[in-house]
């Protein structure tokens, strides 16, 4: 959701903040189905911008935190799939399919939220997500 920020970012800051979300989108296309790529891309972007303005750092942190939790969920799905394909005593089952469908739903939701955040922050608007926003607020100080 859009909320207030201590200051209105300049054009260059807004662009960088927007790019932090775009990083995870580009990584989805390159890294699919390897979930680590998304996390690495946002982590590298976060490291590269850790001395940037507060607006950029804040959004890099939010993008990184969301990618981190997605990484855990997606990695579980990835390795479960590998075991279904490789191990003789593991097979396609209802719990497996339910997990993959749940992961897919949350990935689509996260994708929609990321695109929306990228567009809004590019316009200089502040976007604070449920849970990730308050967590970023704790971790990222002006």
């Amino acid at each position, binding site marked *: 959701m859009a909320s207030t920020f201590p200051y209105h970012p300049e054009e260059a800051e807004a662009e960088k903040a927007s790019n932090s979300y775009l990083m995870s989108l580009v990584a989805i296309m390159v890294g699919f189905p390897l979930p680590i790529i998304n996390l690495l891309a946002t982590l590298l972007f976060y490291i590269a911008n850790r001395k940037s303005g507060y607006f950029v750092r804040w959004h890099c942190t939010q993008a990184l935190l969301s990618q981190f939790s997605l990484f855990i969920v997606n990695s579980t799905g990835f390795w479960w799939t590998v075991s279904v*394909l490789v191990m003789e*005593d593991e097979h*396609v089952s*209802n719990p497996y399919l339910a997990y993959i469908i749940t992961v897919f*739903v949350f990935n689509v939701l996260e994708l929609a939220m990321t695109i929306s955040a990228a567009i809004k922050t590019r316009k200089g608007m502040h976007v604070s997500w449920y849970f990730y926003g*308050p967590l970023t607020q704790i971790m990222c100080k002006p």
Partner: protein
Amino acid sequence: MKKTLVQAIVLLLLITGVYLLVSRVDWMKLFRIEKMSDALEKKVGDIVWEGMKEQSVEAGSEYNRVDSLVTALCKSNGINRKKIKVHIMGDNEVNAFAMPDNHLVVHTGLINAVKNNDELSGVLAHEIAHMELSHVMKKLLKQLGYTVLINLTTGEAGGEAIKQVLGMLSSTAYDRKLEKDADVKAVEYLKKTGISANGFADFLYRLGEKDGALGNLSWISTHPDSRERAKYIREEAK
């Protein structure tokens, strides 16, 4: 901080809730996965069997002996006897294996190597367990993949693929866990039939000693650690 914690809990509950909700749907039935797997197994079984049926004997004393033991095991364990197709291969290979669509292949070498019906019943119960626990298709799917098996049924894979499947089923082992599962199930079948599992353990122990008098020991190469297996079968049989 408190707000963040509350939101973290709410988010976790939401994800868990969605998963539990999605889990209530029978996706296997919805996507017809089991039906498709059964149809694939039948086709693979028919094609592979077609490639080896000329060497099999479908009558005679050896066939009757195996057939009666299989019937007894099935009857005592509520297994549909009609679905298991028994085939005897006339050679000195000490081997027996299960094929897709419940084809049970037993070599005369194995029948001659066992000392009594208890030993033979143990081996048969073990192979029936592989069938009942769906190990045969699991093994083929893991080692060859859906694409090769589907190509096999459409004729695109050719004779080499059929040989590969046959070789895989007759001369390579299941993984250790599946072998143990089949052994445990076999002991259960034997107990319910009123047959002592010690016969099965004795036979495995003799295989473990690689007794040259037994002949061409294919079954030992597909079923490693025979002595260890004999030990836990005796334990299970108690």
